[in-house]
């Protein structure tokens, strides 16, 4: 591996401007992580107009900072107030809040910050090693490969994402439809423009992202206005003890690995990995009953995992050009705005951007580790602002922002239309992610598909004959067929015997009681010395 561009990347990051934007990014990210209802996708969408004003590298450094910064911030409210600021810190609530109730809020936050730092750093190191390897195939990528890649990206996000699969496909189809609006790039024919000049150039990514993520989320969060708030919480003893660190070090390691692996998979990302990491810790633990009552591992594992996943989800984006989740899709859009198409060519064509962004994550994680504990009080204070004050300001910023991009009032109308659409989608249970993703990849998909068909003289079989596109096609078919196969299997199982169908779900809960008696006689003689702290914890709880 050539080491020079990596070093140059640090040179890019250490420029004062980039350092400043990295700092802005992580602070905003943490802030957004604290605020429930405003996720990283929404914030990045709202801040898209800002990226026009700065260099591509600087812009992406900031947006990336928002994304992984949000993973830190989400922990704070989970632990202190039992309010998960982000979907990815929902599992942190179980043990984090229990620890806070025992007066160990500081310990939980400290461990979460350290875990996040380790998770993020492990992931960046792996990213540094893996990404150039994947990108080394770049030269072999032509239009057919890009076609398959775009198709696979849309399909994976729709198939693996959380929520209903059918609804995700519907959303993706709408996204593809929206991508066709405007003048055809090859023939010049106008499509779905309704004779409007504003739509002749196609729909812009910025108003769509700002509407569907930004405005829609604000509208949605206004619904919770009537809910009763919570009294403020105190933070004491912010540094974890040596014993806590020792106890959670394994969990942090395992969480980082899980997060890294699941983060690469499209549609997986931070939410899934935090759930998986928590599940694994609970299963591995000799004292699973401690979980939910303030087990430090229950905070350490998911927090390491969601940060590792947030970082590793940049791998498919920066190397293959597939956005792995909704937030990354918005960052993808930001890159396209800057005239850079993320893909296998990125490392070769824009090494300063690739390594600049990757290396900025090291700096960003250090900044986050330093800031997360001292700033907790400030972040909690922000939660005392009422939604009726916060929402109008955010909406105003969104609308002014989108207007400044093109000085075009039609864009404001677009934001409002897509805001309402996104809100209705949310209400009806449609994920906005696949729509935006399909829209982003739609134009890429179309132009490359048509270019490759010209290459193949209109022969569709050409996609299967080239090695890389053939492989991608095979993966595509597997992704399509597997869920169908599973569906058919479940159908036939359900047809044979009713009680057999809910087996996996019911079996998991049934396993734990049957496992523990069989484990305890064999384990107890050998494990008694190391197990001493577990019964100690139990007696403490019973005495309370």
């Amino acid at each position, binding site marked *: 591996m050539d080491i020079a561009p990596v070093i140059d990347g640090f040179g890019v990051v250490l420029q004062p401007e980039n350092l400043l934007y990295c700092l802005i990014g992580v602070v905003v990210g943490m802030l957004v992580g604290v605020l429930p209802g405003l996720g990283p996708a929404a914030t990045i969408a709202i801040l898209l107009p800002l990226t026009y004003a700065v260099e591509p590298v600087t812009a992406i450094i900031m947006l990336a900072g928002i994304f992984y910064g949000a993973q830190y911030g989400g922990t704070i409210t989970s632990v202190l107030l039992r309010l998960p600021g982000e979907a990815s810190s929902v599992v942190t609530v179980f043990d984090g809040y229990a620890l806070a109730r025992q007066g160990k809020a500081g310990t939980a936050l400290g461990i979460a910050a350290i875990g996040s730092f380790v998770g993020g750093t492990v992931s960046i190191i792996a990213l540094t090693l893996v990404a150039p390897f994947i990108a080394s195939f770049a030269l072999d990528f032509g239009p057919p490969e890009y076609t398959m890649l775009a198709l696979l990206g849309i399909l994976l996000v729709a198939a693996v994402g959380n929520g209903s699969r059918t609804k995700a496909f519907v959303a993706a189809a709408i996204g593809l439809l929206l991508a066709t609006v405007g003048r055809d790039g090859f023939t010049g024919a106008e499509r779905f423009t309704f004779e409007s000049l504003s739509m002749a150039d196609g729909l812009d990514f910025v108003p769509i992202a700002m509407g569907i993520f930004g405005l829609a989320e604000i509208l949605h969060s206004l619904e919770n206005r009537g809910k009763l*708030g919570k009294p403020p919480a105190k933070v004491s003893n912010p540094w974890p003890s040596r014993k806590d660190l020792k106890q959670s070090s394994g969990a942090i390691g395992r969480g980082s690995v899980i997060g890294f692996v699941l983060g690469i998979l499209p549609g997986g990302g931070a939410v899934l990995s935090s759930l998986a990491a928590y599940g694994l810790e609970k299963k591995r633990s000799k004292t699973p009953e401690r979980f939910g009552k303030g087990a430090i591992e229950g905070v350490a594992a998911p927090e390491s995992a969601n940060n590792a996943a947030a970082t590793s989800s940049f791998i498919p984006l920066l190397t293959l050009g597939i956005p792995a989740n909704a937030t990354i899709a918005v960052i993808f859009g930001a890159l396209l705005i800057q005239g850079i198409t993320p893909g296998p060519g990125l490392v070769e064509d824009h090494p300063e951007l690739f390594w600049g962004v990757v290396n900025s994550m090291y700096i960003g994680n250090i900044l986050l580790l330093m800031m997360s504990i001292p700033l907790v009080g400030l972040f909690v204070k922000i939660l005392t602002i009422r939604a*009726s004050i916060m929402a109008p300001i955010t909406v105003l910023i969104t609308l002014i922002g989108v207007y400044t991009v093109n000085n075009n009032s039609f864009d404001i109308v677009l934001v409002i239309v897509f805001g309402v659409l996104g809100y209705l989608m949310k209400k009806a249970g449609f994920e906005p992610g696949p729509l935006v993703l399909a829209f982003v990849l739609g134009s890429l998909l179309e132009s490359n598909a048509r270019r490759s068909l010209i290459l193949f003289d209109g022969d569709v079989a050409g996609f299967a004959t080239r090695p890389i596109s053939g492989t991608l096609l095979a993966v595509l078919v597997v992704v399509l067929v597997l869920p169908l196969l599973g569906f058919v299997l479940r159908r036939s199982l359900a047809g044979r015997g009713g009680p057999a169908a809910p087996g996996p779900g019911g079996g998991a809960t049934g396993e734990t009681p049957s496992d523990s008696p069989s484990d305890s006689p064999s384990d107890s003689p050998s494990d008694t010395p190391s197990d001493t702290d577990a019964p100690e914890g139990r007696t403490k709880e019973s005495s309370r």
Partner: protein
Amino acid sequence: MTVLVGYVDTAPGNAAYEAAVAEAARRGEPLVVLNSPQGGALVDKALVGDERRAELASVAAAAGVAFELRQPTHHDDLAGAIAAVADEVDASVVVIGIRRRSPVGKLFLGSDAQRVLLDLDRPILAVKPRS
């Protein structure tokens, strides 16, 4: 008949609470504590948490007074919320804490204490914190 006190965890609020406990003990009536947040925010500084609630209850218990805490959201109308609860529990006296306001502040923001004093048709005990 009960003694109703409007409470937030501030100096005037605590002065009002102290006076209300004494008043309830003197009258031999149960004490109803109204802690009404405005609502809309995720964290509300005015809201009484579990710890503070226990402290308040122990003060009341020490004086031999029955204690009840109510926390309805008042949105924009605090005086209305106090009036509604006062009617519901049939308060013989309503205790509130008052603080100094500048004329300008009063002009722009109004005064909840003034509205309570003028709007409620019940005896009201207004308490200032000791300075």
